[in-house]
């Protein structure tokens, strides 16, 4: 895949993920655009590679954020006994950290 295609895909992917951003999609999309346009003049392939890597890291972070947010909401709503699930939460949070 060409670098150009990868950058475009990354942008599309981030845009898609920003649609359900808790703070509002606009906040996310504005910042996303800014981040990409800031680096629009970068031409060095290794540097572009690095920036793509950073973007992919952000994708993983957002995925983790969304799943943790949903997990917490479910836990709060349906599980009264805190201690019973603390272990499960810890396990989950550790796995999120690894991402």
């Amino acid at each position, binding site marked *: 895949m060409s670098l150009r295609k990868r950058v475009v895909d990354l942008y599309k*992917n981030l845009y898609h993920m920003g649609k359900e951003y808790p703070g509002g999609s606009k906040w996310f999309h504005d910042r996303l655009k800014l981040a990409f346009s800031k680096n629009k003049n970068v031409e060095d392939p290794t540097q572009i590679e690095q920036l793509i890597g950073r973007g992919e890291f952000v994708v993983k972070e957002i995925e983790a954020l*969304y799943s943790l947010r949903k997990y917490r909401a479910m836990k709060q709503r349906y599980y009264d006994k805190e201690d019973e*699930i603390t272990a*499960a939460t810890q396990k989950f949070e550790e796995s999120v950290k690894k991402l």
Partner: protein
Amino acid sequence: MKILVGVKRVVDYAVKIRVKPDRSGVVTEGVQHSMNPFDEIALEEAVKLKEKKLATEVVAFSLGGPKSQEVLRTALAKGADKAIHVQVSDEEASKLESFHVAKTLKKIVESEKFDAVFLGKQAIDDDSSQTAPILAGLLDWPQALYASKVEEGGDGHMKVKIPFVLSADLRLNEPRYATLPNIMKAKKKPLKAIPIKDLGVDIKPQTETIEVTEPPVRQAGGFVEDVAGLVAKLKEKGFVKA
């Protein structure tokens, strides 16, 4: 092993639920919907089993109005191979009960020869937790409810023989996110729509909704002037001995 996974389209967990002014139900028009979070967990488990080659095929199922196809597409994006949408009108969908869903699932399981059915332990809209046990009863299959771990031949707390019905607990796994490329690929996966009439399942409501109301609002707290006032209040409420 062929696994059927039931997924329900519900009002998104992050949405603040509002009751309709005429108290006939909750507002669903123009409200964000998504897949029931517990069904996501059931689906994730089935897809994981397929990735471990313990399952051959994962099929997503939904009984509901036309928009139920959205959650089926999400299920396909998350790794299901095929999807089956049993169609009812939105009007009928709002009156569906666990019993109707279980009867429909039974028909599908029998006609398509599934070996296991995975469901969420409950849906976050009606919270009834009934579909899995009713289905197990109708099929006369063993059931593993509120599963927090699934192992093949493991020394678990409970063993079930195939075929079986499973309902997924929150602790079971961490569902994956439907990525954009997978969503695009999912558009090409087969989604079969079957009108409920063709299955011959009677969905006449057995319950009648009298009234839906908001939970009582929490009473606002009061302020006290000083320590003496606080102590007096506490004594008045009986929290400290007089």
